[in-house]
């Protein structure tokens, strides 16, 4: 059956509209993530890094500063063990963050990293990081959260200070939600 001109036009335009909806929902978010990963936009650091043996550049020293902050309503005490370290590019460095859950209930936290300057984001590798997992702390429990990182020897010249900031989020509800799918809403607060 031959379609009328109107039906053809409508079909084409509907396809375009549905395609744009799909583009917004399924293409734009991953595209944005890929873009951020490539450019280091928003200071997003990469995932776990497999350490490759590399020469340590002892000629150069880079200052790495640590910042720890809590997202709104997160009651944990959260602070870096050392505020600042001087490292040579290429060497693997260990440091810790301290966290304590002062409340009387078990809670789950998630730390989200952000790094400035953005152009250093792709040259800061974490081989081990507490931010790769959620942290669960019982009431009153204290934990030392480990971080092991390598500053890439290819770090652009001119970057002498890197500031790594962690924001700690309370994800107890989000996790409780996933564990128990029956009560999906109702926990949100205004």
């Amino acid at each position, binding site marked *: 059956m031959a379609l009328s001109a109107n039906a053809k*036009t409508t079909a084409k335009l*509907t396809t375009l509209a549905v395609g*744009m909806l799909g*583009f917004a929902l399924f293409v734009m978010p991953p595209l944005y993530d890929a873009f951020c990963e490539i450019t280091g*936009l928003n200071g997003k650091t990469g995932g776990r890094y497999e350490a490759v043996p590399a020469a340590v550049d002892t000629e150069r020293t880079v200052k790495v500063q640590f910042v720890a902050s809590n997202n709104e309503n997160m009651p944990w005490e959260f602070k870096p063990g050392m505020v600042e370290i001087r490292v040579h590019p290429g060497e693997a460095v260990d440091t810790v963050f301290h966290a304590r859950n002062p409340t009387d209930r078990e809670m789950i936290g998630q730390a*989200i990293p952000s790094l400035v300057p953005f*152009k250093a984001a792709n040259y800061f590798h974490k081989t081990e990081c507490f931010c790769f997992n959620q942290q669960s702390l019982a009431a009153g429990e204290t934990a030392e959260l480990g971080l092991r990182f390598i500053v890439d020897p290819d770090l652009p010249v001119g970057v002498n200070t890197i500031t790594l900031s962690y924001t700690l*989020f309370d994800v107890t509800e*989000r996790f409780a939600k996933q564990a128990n799918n029956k009560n999906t809403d109702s926990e*949100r607060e205004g």
Partner: protein
Amino acid sequence: MAHGPKPGFTRWLYTTNHKDIGSMYLWFSFAMFLLGGCMALVIRAELFQPGLQIVQPGFFNQMTTMHGLIMVFGAVMPAFVGLANWMVPMMIGAPDMALPRMNNWSFWILPFAFAMLTSTLFMEGGAPDFGWTFYAPLSTEYAPPSVTFFIFAVHIMGASSIMGAINIVATILNMRAPGMTLMKMPLFVWTWLITAYLLIAVMPVLAGVVTMMLMDIHFGTSFFSAAGGGDPVLFQHVFWFFGHPEVYIMILPAFGIVSAIIPTFARKPLFGYSSMVYATASIAFLSFIVWAHHMFTVGMPIAGELFFMYATMLIAVPTGVKVFNWVTTMFRGSMTFETPMLFSIAFVILFTIGGFSGLMLAIAPADFQYHDTYFVVAHFHYVLVPGAIFSITAGVYYWLPKWTGNMYNESMGKVHFWLAFVGLNVTFFPMHFVGLAGMPRRIPDYALQFADFNQIASVGAFLFGAAQILFLFNVIRTVRGGKKATDEVWENPEGLEWSVPSPAPYHTFSTPPVVR
């Protein structure tokens, strides 16, 4: 069905007639314009003095949010769709829209969408209060419970706009009278064709972004939640990918309207028709690659800032071509200044002022200073009020005699124009000054040094609002009677719509006209 409209109320429920649907769109949009205007007056009344006088900050935020949403989606867009419904078939010699039943549906879902949106004002927790741009996480983690109703209202508005746009494209591409080639189409038809494509391309993106919000709020995803690995900045990118073309959706049909009116009252053909078409197309294309100029302060690489800055400034070129063409059309014409022409000339002047403040905002380093101040409010009200609202008003005065068969009251029209013109400038011009002096937008209280200009702006706003009552009165009077209009209405206007009798019969061009 035979010839005339069905008697009784069901005429409006079941109608598939483009003129009926166009009228319903226009009345609906005027009702929304008054509702959104009342909200603006609440805002201006609160800002008359520093300190909190009339409303609480929470309600103030609901007013700014609802004012923006209702004006953009309820007043400006449906008004343009209404004008397209009325005029596009008559301008291209078609008997009706291509998809008349869908046309009925795309109108009738709108009142439901806005009933739902407005009902949030009476809900527990109040209406949406996160600004019309509804940035996450304000609109997700910190939103009032009514946000879900807002999301569904936006879905319905989006569906309505997409269906309306598909209808308009199908009409323009398939229903033109023989001989009406694309490059013979009136500019209003051209600008609407391009606008419709923009709508089909970006309204689904808006639907997508509110869907992601819905998922984040109710289904545990983390598109915009940093705690779950998402990113609130993603919201801004997706929103403005919709939002920037959206602002051209609200202005391109306006270009078409004034391109019809100015030649009539300058008694000269439009200067540079084809350059107008190409300029419109270029503006539409550029609208897709400038979205991040709304987000200069969000943290972007320098290359991104520069790209979006230059691309934005580039838009001034096709827009300049248009302004040049309108001015050149008037140059040495035998101009008369009837109401539609007054509104059109004011459009050209004031829209250009809004364009210049837009260029100032386009300069990325300067934007860090202007960002989220009243300067931005002044800018977009200068492009939207004299841009969209004045051109719609001009279009209504211009075609009203054709729709009703009666002439409107010219002196009342002129009084309306001057009140609106003065009111608009008194309202929005001082906002440039307070903005440059550092007054942030979306606040119910402000520092004392901004008091004078805010008082002036509030007085202007009430003047502007009062002028619209005169407009309503004039339109109702014209619908009910008055001096009979001739078929041509104006002196030798161009276009097929003037070749049918006044008032336009219920069915026009049942046999296609001959286009030379």
